[in-house]
């Protein structure tokens, strides 16, 4: 290996960035891809719920009625109105901080899902639903803020890996269509290249926009340089919504439906996505309505703030300049709300391609360093084992989460947390068990178990829910489970039929110099 060319250094850094962040990135890609169907997964996990579509104004009214009965003195209500895909209202409340400074901070309350027609909590089994995948995707089930920081670090590594990968790839266009099977390291490199390059615009976009989604947390310093009071930045973006302090005088909110209708009218019929009510029981309550981001690329919709009691229009978000619009578009690209049904499936497939890119990269790292007959060095064993745990056992955990949803009794208390436990027990348990097996058998068996668990999900669905699904959503979901099971099963089968390294017949032709250089190129 000669010289310190940029290709060599980028190849080296690409390998290390990809390896160190790869295990977590795989989980982020998987859960992120699942999150494209966040509301659909939630609906599948609450099959008892029969949604009734009602006008937004009505949904807002019933929700506020319930909140006034159940959380009347809270500091802030956040209401996500139902959409075509999310057929229930989601409400979060934030309690008033305890005036006693020594009292421990109250835990964040989980969301409550309400029937938009009645305002009552929906009558269905308690579950996190698709929200679990969404939150895991950027919080990694770690306490705040460590999860987000770790996810951000992995995303930065991913960005570095993309840039270095592009710089180092010598024949990026000549190799565009090359995918050779059963050629060992060659094949893994081909698979990694194909999954990475063919969807390169998507991977680059999703990585950079992902960082942007939490940029205020990751890079707040420009705000501090430009604003003596950092909260003024949010006010510049959203209009002065948070300013109102509780006056201490009681007050009654005006009819929420009228707020929704007024805002919608001002936006020429566009839907309201979210309502934030500040100090709802106070005379100086505020109602902020946010416009939907589903009909355009910019996910950050405009907002209007009204006085809660009088209904007077207080403020509206200013029209965004090019930078703010860019940030909003980046957010929209990442969330993919603008996508109709076909595009959404396309994004899902591209997300799976991203998972393949990370997984093939991780496997490639070990395949390149395999010395037939030699004892693997410790780092190699460590990476092999982590690869199995991260790539082959995570699907088992996800399938276990979905299976638990169907198998646990619907009325069981605490079942939502049990479903999450099932996911982690299955994932880490299978990974631990895989340590008892030799590496190749471990791959085959964990992939096979993951495949079986995924295949069990639609079977459990049919068995427990009782009726054959007629709703298109359930059919599509179960079919996807079977397809994922088939893919995992295919991977297990291919690994099993591949001749073990020691028994590989000698190569027919001597390896050419060019091939050696190419294989080592991405060292």
């Amino acid at each position, binding site marked *: *290996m000669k010289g*310190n060319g*940029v290709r*060599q*250094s*980028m*190849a*080296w*850094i690409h390998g290390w960035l990809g390896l160190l962040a790869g295990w977590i990135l795989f989980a982020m890609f998987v859960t992120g891809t699942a999150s494209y169907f966040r509301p659909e997964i939630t609906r599948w996990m609450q099959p008892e719920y029969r949604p009734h579509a009602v006008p937004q104004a009505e949904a807002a009214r019933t929700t506020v009625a319930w909140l006034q009965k159940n959380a009347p003195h809270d500091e802030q209500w956040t209401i996500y109105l139902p959409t075509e895909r999310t057929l229930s209202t989601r409400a979060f409340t934030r309690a008033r901080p305890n005036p006693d400074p020594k009292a421990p901070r109250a835990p964040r309350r989980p969301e409550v899902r309400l029937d938009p027609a009645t305002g009552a909590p929906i009558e269905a089994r308690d579950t996190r639903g698709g929200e679990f995948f969404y939150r895991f995707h950027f919080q990694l089930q770690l306490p705040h803020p460590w999860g987000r920081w770790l996810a951000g670090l992995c995303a*930065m590594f991913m*960005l*570095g890996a993309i*840039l*270095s990968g592009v710089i180092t790839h010598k024949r990026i266009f000549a190799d565009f269509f090359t995918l050779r099977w059963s050629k060992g390291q060659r094949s893994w490199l081909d698979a990694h290249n194909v999954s990475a390059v063919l969807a390169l615009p998507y991977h680059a976009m999703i990585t*950079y926009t992902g*960082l*942007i989604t939490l*940029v*205020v947390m990751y*890079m707040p*310093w*420009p*705000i*501090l*340089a*430009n*604003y*003596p009071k950092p909260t003024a*930045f949010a006010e*510049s*973006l959203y209009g002065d919504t948070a300013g109102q302090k509780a006056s201490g005088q009681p007050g009654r909110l005006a009819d929420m439906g009228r707020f929704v209708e007024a805002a919608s009218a001002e936006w020429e019929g566009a839907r309201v996505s979210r309502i934030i009510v500040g100090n709802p029981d106070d005379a100086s309550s505020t109602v902020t309505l946010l416009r939907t981001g589903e009909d355009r690329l910019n996910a950050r919709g405009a907002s209007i703030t009204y006085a809660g009691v009088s209904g007077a229009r207080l403020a509206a978000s200013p029209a965004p*300049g*090019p*930078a*703010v619009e*860019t*940030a909003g578009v*980046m957010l929209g690209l990442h969330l993919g709300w603008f996508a109709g049904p076909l595009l959404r499936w396309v994004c899902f497939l591209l997300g799976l391609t991203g998972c393949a890119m990370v997984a093939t990269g991780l496997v490639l790292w070990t395949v390149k360093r395999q010395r037939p007959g030699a004892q693997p060095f410790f780092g190699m064993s460590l990476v092999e084992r982590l690869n199995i745990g991260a790539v082959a056992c995570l699907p088992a955990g996800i399938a276990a989460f979905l299976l638990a949803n169907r198998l646990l009794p619907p009325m069981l208390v605490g079942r939502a947390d049990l479903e999450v436990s099932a996911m982690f027990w299955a994932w880490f348990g299978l990974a631990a068990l895989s340590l008892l097996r030799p590496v190749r058998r471990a791959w085959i068996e964990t992939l096979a178990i993951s495949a079986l668990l995924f295949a069990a999900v639609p079977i459990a669905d049919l068995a427990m829910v009782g009726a054959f699904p007629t709703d298109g959503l359930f059919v599509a979901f179960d079919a996807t489970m079977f397809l994922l099971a088939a893919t995992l099963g295919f991977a297990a089968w291919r690994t099993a039929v591949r001749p073990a390294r020691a028994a590989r017949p000698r190569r027919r032709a001597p390896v050419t110099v060019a091939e050696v250089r190419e294989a080592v190129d991405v*060292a």
Partner: protein
Amino acid sequence: MASAQLGGQGWSMAGRSLTALIGGYAAAAGLATLLARLLPVERVEATAWGMILSFLFYAAFGLWAFHEPRLTRVAAVIWGAAVVAGGAALLLGVRP
């Protein structure tokens, strides 16, 4: 392996990694903050541009830290950029 080019193992690699990871972040943050402070556009716009571009700066610093073989040069440029940009931003003070 290119790592041999990068001047040995152990402490040298640790120093380089730390410079890339932490120094790179500081340099990117400093540059982004300076940009936000000085861009002659509306305050909220300049802030947003700085934040949006910051990750590109970070990636560039980080990758370059592992391309340039001389560790002293890497450390000087990256930590230097962090100190100069950050210092300048601090000295300029908050936008009036």
